[in-house]
């Protein structure tokens, strides 16, 4: 053991005596790289918006309302639902909603997704956790309970859906039905939207990387950006209830 300790001590001494190649000053280059990446993302967003505008022309847009910073469009649905993601064999309510693969814990889903999910403290740990490879969305599913009335799907109290946005700017574009109402709200100090009468199964882009997702429950949706994520809560909660839950996401 003493011999090992001596060897470790000699290696420790050696640490200060190695002639490493001189390290560069990377600050200017890193700043330039960050700026170039931001420009590329802006270009992609513009292209995405242009593509959506073209789709609207072909799909029969009836009205468009300005959004806070993203584009919010009211539209008679004209695009199909996304292809179903492969579901795991483990079952659960989420399997019917094509949420992807079911995971044993939020941490497991986070590892699969490559980002950290925000779990609303007011809801606690979800009853089911899902992640869809094709959508890039982590879904936290909660059954109905005392403080969580049943949604349009009586088996579900709330569905919290989260996807990584490419940057901190709101990058989501939503499509809603003609009977939908949209109001702008503040969530976690940032802009969000409260949507009532959201149609079920209408696809919309999530972020600028071309992935799409769809509303899973017909009803009320709160959607906002936080910590680099696009989050939405689909539930039977009213606006105040949904905002209360969203305020505890972290």
């Amino acid at each position, binding site marked *: 053991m003493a011999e090992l300790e001596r060897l470790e001590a000699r290696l420790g001494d*050696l640490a200060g005596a190695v*002639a490493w190649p001189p390290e560069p000053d990377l600050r200017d280059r890193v700043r330039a790289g960050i700026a170039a*990446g931001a420009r590329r993302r802006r270009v992609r967003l513009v292209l995405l918006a242009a593509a959506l505008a073209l789709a609207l022309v072909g799909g029969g847009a009836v009205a468009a309302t300005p959004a806070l910073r993203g584009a919010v469009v009211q539209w008679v649905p004209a695009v199909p639902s996304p292809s179903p993601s492969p579901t795991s064999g483990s079952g659960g309510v989420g399997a019917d909603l094509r949420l992807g693969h079911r995971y044993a814990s939020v941490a497991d889903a986070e590892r699969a997704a490559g980002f950290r999910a925000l779990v609303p403290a007011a809801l606690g740990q979800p009853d089911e956790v899902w992640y869809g490879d094709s959508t890039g969305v982590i879904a936290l599913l909660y059954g109905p309970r005392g403080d969580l009335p049943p949604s349009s799907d009586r088996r579900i109290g709330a569905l919290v859906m989260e996807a990584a946005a490419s940057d901190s700017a709101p990058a989501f574009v939503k499509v809603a039905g003609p009977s939908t109402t949209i109001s702008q709200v503040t969530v976690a100090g940032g802009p969000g939207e409260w949507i009532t009468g959201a149609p079920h199964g209408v696809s919309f882009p999530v972020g600028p990387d071309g992935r799409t997702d769809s509303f899973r429950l017909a009803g009320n949706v709160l959607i906002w950006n936080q910590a*680099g994520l696009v989050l939405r809560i689909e539930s039977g909660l009213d606006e105040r209830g949904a905002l209360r839950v969203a305020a505890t996401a972290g």
Partner: protein
Amino acid sequence: MEEPRPEAADEELVERARRGHAPAYDELVRRYTRIAFRAAYVVTGSAADAEDAAQDAFVKAHRALPRFRSGAPFRPWLLRIVGNEARNRRRSAGRRAAIELRAAAVAEAGCASPHDAAEAAEDRQALLQALQALAEDQRQVVTCRYLLQLSVEETAAALGVPAGTVKSRLSRALDRLRELMEPTRHG
């Protein structure tokens, strides 16, 4: 923008950088360029590739800041990104890493005589030669752990292997180093 205090904690700098404060991220880059560059050098075996890998890692880390877990240590998280970038560059370069470690000329403040100083220098050189003779995976783990003075977790992050693998490789590497140093110790 207000310059961050040099003594500001990583956590504070990360939080400010997340909010778009460029000088805060500049300070993180300045603070960790050396360790990022050297860790990348251990993996790539090329100073030029290490420089590019470290630069790209800092850019990607900045982009990933919104997903960084608040309160988590920044350095191992960064080293994981650095290690990934370095391995990607090494793969695309299609060559094996073969870093050349040399002993720098250092003042032998603790040596009683020029003879002792010469012996200390010889001892370091012998240890470096033994290190160069190790298998690559063992040399990398010893270099990260002792010469870069990374923790086991940071070494695992930089090399992209589990912490348990770091420990077992380290154990085998130290055994091998002792064998290689036998003639020196008894010579």
